């Protein structure tokens, strides 16, 4: 007990540090609405700067500390003004990604300025000891604790009692409202960054004398426990931060003392605790499908996945010729490294670029595959190719583990979870000591455990007859790397163009919309993580042999798979263009040791002059950080997108000299259209074909449906039935429960009670995708189109077969098939033929609204649930849509439920109308009857219906 209390007291030192770092994270989150992944980097910067201020510049401790805090605060302020201000309207995820740019910049600048020499700083805290519970404790611990407590108390009082503090919270919660009353969101955000960064500076000052090896990237990773603590405090409560920091410090130390020291097999267990906290707070409290309030984040620009065989063949031939006949070995190895990093990055193209699953721990599956492969080779002497297969399977298993939290979290939350997983995996897997069997016949056995060689001794290995040794066989290794990357890149490009890729892009764009089209969000995520992990695993195995093949002994703990590496990987991938397969090549070029480094060295040599110019390659990471922030401020396409646009412009200029080029392009387009619409859509446009249409007529029946959100009941025991060919309108004031009713029918919101049947079959137990596949289609108020895709791809995403086979076959081939009959008919009926090859973002609003309905129709539903389909349309467009909907019901037999505020629409299209008010159905009948109902007039219309002719509610 004495020990327990003694260690509890001792843990206060680390706990206070966690609390201080986390308080900075929370201040920035509260004042600027940003999760700052660079906070650990700012602490690292401050620790270095403080040390240098004393050692190099000879400043006394107090001025050095004060200067450190001021400079770190200035960095935060400058970042807020220069980088975050233009991003004020961006999603939290985009802004958090921009902080990764800050992380890279700070880390690079610190490296350039301070290097990695071990530094020492005299303590700013008083010396002396006292004994409590039989434990000798330094006085500095209590001083540090008190200092942190005072700082946090002041911050708490500031946010709680001052007008400025309250305004800061208001600005984040509702920037427009706060601005309306005179609080500038930019000013508040700048102040929050300034104060939060100053806290990082203070943490650095208090940390520097504690004896930490300042050169370690582990300082940067202090952000992981800080995020765990901030999560415990819900990024809001400063007392919670203090308590959480101390609690985390206590649990870590007790785990270290009681478990890790006593049982070395548990090495790293103490460092898993922040991950456990993160998983608990984010995953357990997450949602399978995002709720209606979920903000759809902007994602990086997507490439089309088109392959140009001639260009690719020529590039490959030139590269191979250079490898074998021209380049010296160091350049050849740089080509090999480039290909391998590109291979690792293309795994992120699948996961982040296509599926939109942010992963800050992508080197974990890569490392696990390398670990499994190496251990099998070293311990059991399997052939490398067999071990490689097992290793990649292991990576897939890890990828699926990553996917589990992704099923309930997304965006920023997922980024935090994967960062935590990366840190935990590094601690428990890669930093573990590995040994290999002693060589046969050795006398080493007399030394007991020392007789087993350290590391994973794999010796000289070959793959497909190619020796994996960059010294003895650089040409062969580089060729292997290049060919493997090319094959994988081709498969990923095929995936992008195929229906499996469209499923991934659909969940990236909007999970709710994807589910409404029958796409299994769970299945698509699992696939994305598995495939991505497999590619990363393959890259990881090849890369460890690139690094250690010549030595024949793999060291997994040297930082190759460290969490900071994963951060750099995604940062470089974004800079290269994470939505483009070719972006992986561009991104890889920025990694140290690849072609970018070689070119920078040559350029530096040519430039000569000042010393820093000679070492131009040292500035590559810094430049990458800056470019990352710039990309976050733009469309997010990265280098690959810019390259594609430049090539397109160049080809257009070249093509202008060929008069017949437009005619050839038009002919090609016609041929493609004819192929796509072969099943009927090409027959005509506006008129809806009468028959045959592939609709399965079915009756939708809802009985006693109830929807609750916590203590609030949004829908109270509503009964509703819609027959095939019938259009039923839902009307009611805002907040009446209409959309909640639609959500509950489509499976997008859980029902607390009641029954939903389709064609007499209950569908209550089915999730949204399976209800969609059963025949319940829907649209959304906010359109929920896949903005990065073309109109055609949106239609295809809705009408593609939902087979699992595509997940495999699309990697090999992605031949474009004719649209299914219903999709082709929808294209014709909604007049989308001429827009098919345009991206959605190019369309005017009215066309996009039509597309949202057409996409739902293309899925061939029996029942169509339309949530405010006419919102934003002018009267002509609305009237056109009304006619179209009426004919979909009359001629195709669709059962339609329409929620709209425009009474002219409701009256024009509906056979019956149900009126909802405060979650209850208060009336139902023909439109004219309902509008004349006094209860309806009192609750909703307010005056006789005739006054609303031709007006929406907005006009009422």
């Amino acid at each position, binding site marked *: 007990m004495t020990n327990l209390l*003694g260690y509890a007291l*001792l843990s206060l*030192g*680390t706990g206070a*540090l966690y609390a201080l770092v986390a308080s900075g994270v929370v201040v920035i989150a509260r004042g600027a609405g940003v999760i700052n992944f660079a906070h650990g980097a700012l602490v690292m910067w401050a620790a270095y700067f403080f040390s240098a201020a004393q050692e190099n510049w000879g400043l006394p401790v107090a001025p050095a500390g004060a200067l450190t805090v001021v400079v770190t605060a200035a960095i935060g302020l400058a970042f807020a003004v220069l980088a975050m201000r233009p991003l004020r309207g961006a999603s939290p995820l985009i802004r958090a990604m921009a902080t990764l740019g800050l992380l890279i910049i700070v880390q690079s600048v610190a*490296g350039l300025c*301070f*290097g*990695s*020499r*071990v*530094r*020492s700083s*005299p303590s700013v805290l008083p010396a002396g000891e006292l004994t409590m519970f*039989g434990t000798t*404790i*330094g006085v500095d*611990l209590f001083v540090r604790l008190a200092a942190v407590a005072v700082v946090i108390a002041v911050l708490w009082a500031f946010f709680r009692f001052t007008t400025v503090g309250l305004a800061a919270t208001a600005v984040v919660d509702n920037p427009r409202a706060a601005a309306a009353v005179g609080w500038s969101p930019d000013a508040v955000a700048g102040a929050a960054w300034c104060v939060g960064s100053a806290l990082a500076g203070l943490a650095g000052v208090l*940390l520097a004398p*504690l*004896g930490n*090896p*300042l*050169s*370690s990237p582990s300082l940067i*990773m*202090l952000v992981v426990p800080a995020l765990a603590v901030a999560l415990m405090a819900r990024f809001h409560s400063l007392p919670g931060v203090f308590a959480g920091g101390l609690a985390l410090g206590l649990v870590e130390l007790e785990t270290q*003392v009681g478990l*890790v*020291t006593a049982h070395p097999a548990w*090495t790293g267990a103490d*460092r898993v605790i922040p991950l456990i906290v993160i998983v608990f707070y984010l995953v357990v409290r997450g949602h399978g499908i995002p709720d209606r309030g979920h903000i759809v984040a902007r994602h990086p620009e997507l490439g089309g996945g088109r392959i140009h065989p001639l260009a690719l063949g020529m590039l490959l031939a030139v590269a191979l010729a250079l490898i074998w006949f021209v380049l010296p*070995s*160091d350049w050849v190895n740089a080509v090999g490294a480039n290909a391998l990093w590109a291979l690792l990055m293309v795994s992120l193209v699948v996961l982040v670029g296509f599926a939109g699953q942010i992963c800050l721990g992508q080197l974990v599956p890569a490392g696990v595959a390398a670990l499994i492969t190496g251990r099998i080779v070293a311990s059991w002497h399997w052939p490398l190719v067999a071990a490689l297969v097992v290793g990649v399977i292991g990576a897939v298993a890890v990828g699926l583990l990553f996917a589990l939290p992704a099923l309930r979290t997304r965006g920023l939350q997922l980024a935090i979870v994967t960062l935590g997983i990366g840190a935990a995996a590094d*601690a428990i897997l890669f*930093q573990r*000591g590995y040994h290999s069997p*002693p*060589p046969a016949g050795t*006398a*080493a056995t*007399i*030394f007991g455990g*020392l007789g*087993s*060689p*350290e590391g994973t001794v794999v010796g000289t290995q070959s793959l497909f007859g190619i020796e994996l040794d960059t*010294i*003895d066989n650089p040409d062969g290794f580089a060729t292997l790397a290049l060919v493997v990357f090319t094959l994988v890149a081709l498969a990923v490009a095929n995936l992008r163009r195929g229906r499996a890729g469209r499923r991934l892009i659909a969940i990236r764009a909007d999970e709710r919309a994807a589910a409404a089209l029958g796409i299994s969000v769970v299945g698509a995520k699992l696939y994305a993580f598995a495939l991505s992990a497999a590619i990363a695993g393959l890259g990881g195995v090849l890369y460890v042999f690139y690094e*250690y093949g010549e*030595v024949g*002994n793999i*060291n997994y*703990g*040297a930082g190759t798979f460290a969490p900071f590496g994963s951060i750099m990987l995604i940062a470089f991938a974004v800079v290269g263009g994470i939505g483009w397969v070719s972006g992986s090549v561009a991104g890889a070029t920025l990694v140290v*040791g690849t072609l970018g480094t070689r070119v920078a060295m040559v350029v530096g040599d040519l430039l000569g002059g000042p010393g820093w110019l*000679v*070492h131009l*390659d*040292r500035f590559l990471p810094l430049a990458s950080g800056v470019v990352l922030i710039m990309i976050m401020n733009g469309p997010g396409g990265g280098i690959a997108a810019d390259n594609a646009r430049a090539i397109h412009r160049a080809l257009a200029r070249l093509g202008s000299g060929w008069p017949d080029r437009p005619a050839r392009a038009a002919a090609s387009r016609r041929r493609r259209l004819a192929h796509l619409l072969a099943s009927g859509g090409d027959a005509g446009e506006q008129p809806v074909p009468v028959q045959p249409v592939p609709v399965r007529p079915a009756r939708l029946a809802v009985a006693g449906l109830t929807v609750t959100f916590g203590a609030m009941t949004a829908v109270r025991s509503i009964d509703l039935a819609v027959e095939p060919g019938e259009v039923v309108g839902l009307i009611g004031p805002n907040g009446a429960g209409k959309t909640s009713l639609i959500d509950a029918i489509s499976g997008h919101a859980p029902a607390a009670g009641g029954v939903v049947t389709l064609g007499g079959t209950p569908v209550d137990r089915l999730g949204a995708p399976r209800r969609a596949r059963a025949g319940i289609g829907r649209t959304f108020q906010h359109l929920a189109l896949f903005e990065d895709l073309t109109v055609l791809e949106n239609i295809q995403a809705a009408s593609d077969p939902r087979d699992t086979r595509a997940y495999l076959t699309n990697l090999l081939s992605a031949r474009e098939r004719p649209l299914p009959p219903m999709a082709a008919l929808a294209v014709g009926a909604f007049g989308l033929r001429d827009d098919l090859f345009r991206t959605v973002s190019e369309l005017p609003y009215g066309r996009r609204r039509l597309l949202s309905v057409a996409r739902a129709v293309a899925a061939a539903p029996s029942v169509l649930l339309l949530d405010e389909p006419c919102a934003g349309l002018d009267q002509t467009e609305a009237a056109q849509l009304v006619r179209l909907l009426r004919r979909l019901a009359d001629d195709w037999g669709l059962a339609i439920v329409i929620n709209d505020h425009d009474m002219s629409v409701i009256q024009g299209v509906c056979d019956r109308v149900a009126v909802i008010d405060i979650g209850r159905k208060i009336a139902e009948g023909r439109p004219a009857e309902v509008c004349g109902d006094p209860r309806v007039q009192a609750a909703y219309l307010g005056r006789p219906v005739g006054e609303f002719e031709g007006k929406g509610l907005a006009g009422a």
Partner: protein
Amino acid sequence: MIVAGLGVVLAVAGLTACGHGGGGADSSPPAGSSGAPVTVMIIAPTGTAGGNYPEMVAATRAAVRGVNARGGIKGHPVQLVHCNENNDGSAAAACAKQAADTGVLAVVSETSGTGGIMATLAKAGIASVGSAGVSADGSELHSPISFVLSPLVMFPAVCPALLKKIGAGHLGMVGYDLSASDRLLILGQVGAKAVGLPVSPVVRVPITTNDFTPTVTRLTAAGADGTVMVVTEQAAVAVMRGGGGRLSYCHATGAISDASLEQLGPVAGRLVEATAYPELDEADRFSELRRMRAELDAEYNSGDKDASAALWKSSTSLNGWLSVQVVEKIGNQVPGELTSSALLAQLGRTTNLDLQLVPPLDFTRPNPIPGVERVFNTTLRGARWDSGGRRHVSLGNETYQALDILAAGSRPPR
């Protein structure tokens, strides 16, 4: 790995301050030698923001000056090229390539935290003599072209004996929970067993540890009065500061800088160090040490400020100087033409090489411990920090045979 562990412990591996290998001819051959000049290369970082070894480079320059004064190697004047490793993997690899491309006779006292050098030298058939053996890939310790003179990678095995010598009766250990620390911790535990001292606790802390107060508490609460440290300089300083006079401490020489020891004050007097070579002030006992000092003085007097006596260090200066002595002695034994491959072959045949400062070396018998096969000298010494005189002083004339200690400690109890 031992090597990686030592790299962590000595914190010599710079990761960020980079640049590609530069370097150039550091010393020109004297006019008096008759044969064609041969080139010896030293690969080590200088002038970076990380760990730097200008005193070691100067020591090799001094040694080459001495060799040339004696007529060179087999009549060939020797010129020394320093390739700046810059604490950067790319620069290290470029240095190795430069050595191979220019056909140097040998590489001496190579010091690189990143490694990636030995394989290139091996392919070119160039010997590496006297590598520090601290690279992350561990290649210097088992590459067949490497001939490591310093046994410091085995320092934890000897520390218990040194601590016992100054009166410790119950040891603790402090290391990281990194794979790189595993072997070092085992070495310490086996070494303690060999000298009959209990080791408890063995504290493994995360590399992210910011506060070593709990670590010290665990050591003292368990009754330890001595501790073997296999942590970085800053962590070691923090442990010593926290432990104060309640503990005595042991680390590898050079792991804690003189500046830090001076800052620690009297507590630093409780530090003993495992050393590879005699202390520099033991010149009265070792004639070779006197010769080294004279050659370094001559180098300094020629205008080489890095050869200043104020910068001399036993672990680095002596290692650099000795490496050149090996090349000279073995080079002179090469039958026929003096080439890098002939030198390498002659090194591989060498037995009973007496450098006086270390026990006679037998390059035909690799170290039996896997992973450190090329560490031929396994004899360590002890030193302590004289906080009054602010210098390292010998702990006595005893030497400590690490392999004997490990064999004794690994023996199962009867």
